[in-house]
């Protein structure tokens, strides 16, 4: 009697037939805003969505902040300076209608989703699907047991319509519009994203998943996600992104706010694979109240420039935060990623593990902050950064910042930079693997501490993406 396949066997039993970088030919847009950003466009977005007056005011205020705020001075100023804000569509509506059943989803969109494997994924273990096509959610379903548990899982636009009070109470409380230039931009023009509310004590057993895609040239995507876990609840939210390749630059600037109330546990998993002309400038922040736990599992592939530093504010005693991230930078790409842990309360703990690979002249940076406020004693924090360089032209930098204003703390920091070893390649090639196969295997192994945290199908997708990114590499 032969047992079922193990996870390891399934993960490495994948045919390399995955293709990304496609885009659908015939696209029907119900509405596409003109290029550029004005009060009129912001007002139009709000009106089209029939939003309450307070949200319109919020957007317009954010727009003012955006216009006044200078560009960030960290990350990659040269690349940031190349963004042409006047040449971007800030709002595109793919279809008027929101589909709840697969049958209701328009045919062209369905094809895209078919290629992404969504229906199959759902059959297997999807709890609910919120797949973002263009700026808005078109397909959305929640399994009945979730509804019975009282869990709300909607796109953000519907969340605002159907749960206005919860949204109003929490929206922008973790990341105010004025936080930085791009959070202000998002606050002005946000569209789509997910809204999750988990009632007290409810454990959501199956991960909630969302797929995001950018599919229109020069279109900015500004999704807004808000996840609220009431005391003692648990939720795992997953998003994976693939994007087609286009000739001119796209801007993706999301805001993600997580609120873990006392004793709650939120895990947020992302794999992003933007095409290599996308600016991916994302603000992600969580608050963890007493005894709460928040984990960011964050994978960054693709894009031209990514600037992303998932943060956790540990607000109450015994709160715990973890950021586990990987970054892969190829030719012409800069992954400026990291994490921030801010300890406001005693007995809080945090772990940051960051792994990056640079190839063909690509650049990765780890930029991190651990801050401990006075009075937050008995804090434990550990930071570990490993960088792997594939060739001489590639680059990796580490910018760790520690601001410790309390004596009774334990802080660990480890950083390493290594190169793919000639002896590892020789060993694998002496077993018959080609240089590409050998390199891919070494890279997959390097990312394994990250991959093993992913649900199987995401792990499979990640391994395929890495294999594609390694093609033709010279070790």
């Amino acid at each position, binding site marked *: 009697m032969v047992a079922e396949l193990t996870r*390891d*066997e399934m993960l*490495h039993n994948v045919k390399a037939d995955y293709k990304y970088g496609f885009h659908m030919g015939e696209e029907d847009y119900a509405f596409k805003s003109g290029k550029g950003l004005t009060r009129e466009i912001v007002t139009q977005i709000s009106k089209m969505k029939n939003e309450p007056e307070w949200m319109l005011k919020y957007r317009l205020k954010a727009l003012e902040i955006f216009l006044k705020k200078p560009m960030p001075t960290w990350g990659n100023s040269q690349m940031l300076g190349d963004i042409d804000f006047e040449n971007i569509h800030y709002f595109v509506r793919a279809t008027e209608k929101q589909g709840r059943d697969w049958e209701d989803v328009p045919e062209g969109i369905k094809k895209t989703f078919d290629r992404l494997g969504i229906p199959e994924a759902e059959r297997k273990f999807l709890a609910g699907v919120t797949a973002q096509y263009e700026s808005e959610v078109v397909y959305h379903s929640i399994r009945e047991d979730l509804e019975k548990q009282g869990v709300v899982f909607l796109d953000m636009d519907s969340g605002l319509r159907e749960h206005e009070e919860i949204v109003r109470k929490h929206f922008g409380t973790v990341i105010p519009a004025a936080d930085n230039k791009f959070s202000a931009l998002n606050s002005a023009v946000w569209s789509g994203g997910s809204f999750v509310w988990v009632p007290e004590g409810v454990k959501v057993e199956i991960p909630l998943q969302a797929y995001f895609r950018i599919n229109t040239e020069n279109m900015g995507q500004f999704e807004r996600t808000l996840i609220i876990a009431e005391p003692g609840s648990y939720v795992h939210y997953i998003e994976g992104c693939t994007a087609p390749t286009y000739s001119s630059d796209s801007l993706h600037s999301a805001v993600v706010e997580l609120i873990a109330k006392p004793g709650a546990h939120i895990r947020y998993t992302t794999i992003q694979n933007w095409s290599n002309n996308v600016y991916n400038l994302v603000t992600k922040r969580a608050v963890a109240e007493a005894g709460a736990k928040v984990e960011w599992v964050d994978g960054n592939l693709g894009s031209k420039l990514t600037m992303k530093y998932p943060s956790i504010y540990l607000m109450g005693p015994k709160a715990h935060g973890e950021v586990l991230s990987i970054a892969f930078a190829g030719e012409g790409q800069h992954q400026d990623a990291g994490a921030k842990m801010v300890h406001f309360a005693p007995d809080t703990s945090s772990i940051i593990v960051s792994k990056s690979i640079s190839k063909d002249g690509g650049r990765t940076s780890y930029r991190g902050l651990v801050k401990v406020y006075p009075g937050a004693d008995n804090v434990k924090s550990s930071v570990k950064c490993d960088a792997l360089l594939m060739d001489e032209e590639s680059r990796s930098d580490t910018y760790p910042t520690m601001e410790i204003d309390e004596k009774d703390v334990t802080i660990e920091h480890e950083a390493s930079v290594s190169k793919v070893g000639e*002896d590892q390649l020789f060993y694998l090639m*002496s077993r018959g693997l*080609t240089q590409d*196969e050998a390199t891919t295997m070494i890279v997959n192994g390097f*990312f*394994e501490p990250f991959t093993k945290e992913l649900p199987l199908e995401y792990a499979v997708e990640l391994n395929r993406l890495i294999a594609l990114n390694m093609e033709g590499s010279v070790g």
Partner: protein
Amino acid sequence: MSATPILEIKDLHVEVEGKEILKGVNLVVNAGEVHALMGRNGSGKSTLSYTLMGHPRYVVTKGSVKYRGEDLLALSTDERARKGMYLAFQYPVAIPGVSVSNFLRSTVKARRAVDIPVKEFRKELKEAMAKLGVKDEFLSRYVNDGFSGGEKKRLEILQMALLKPEMALLDETDSGLDIDALRTVAEGINALANKDNALLLITHYQRMLDYVSPGFVHVMQAGQIVKSGGSELAKELEAQGYDWVTKELASSGSSK
């Protein structure tokens, strides 16, 4: 006239970082033969094995190597492996994050050039593991990562059992093994030797040869094979030491 030898090395000269290590090696290995290559540390034994497998740091400056009549030196390392060359490493490197089972399946797939169904492969794997006394938990560990010396050597032999090489080079496979592990590994090697393949055991001790009996024994010294004989040569070496060869060669004037 016999069949084409599996391996035919002629006047092989090899440099490592500009320094000549092999200075004219000649050796012929036929199917069904087990050879032992003995010599002190630094005599060039491991250099020969790395060169035959095509390590980029080992540069052939003169001579030729034929594998089943084909120019071996024109092939890349992975091509050599897929055609049936195998090197059991003295110090196999760790590949962190890569499980033994994934590694084995990938290499077997490469060698056989066909995709083997997962369950079929697992059955074959379990049988090979049982013969070598390798535990199941081995499979989920990362390749050579934190392995003891004995575990590394077992993994090398397990790979050999699965890859079924035609020409296997075993570089100091006996070093770092206690007597029980040595016996198990040697039994594994014996089980793999057959009339169609050939083994070249590289060692500087006799003790491996108590379990794996070679038909041919060669002594290497300063980058050359200076003496060849049958299994009795290994016993003589064990009794009299390598100095004996040096002296004998000096008196007969055949060295150099």
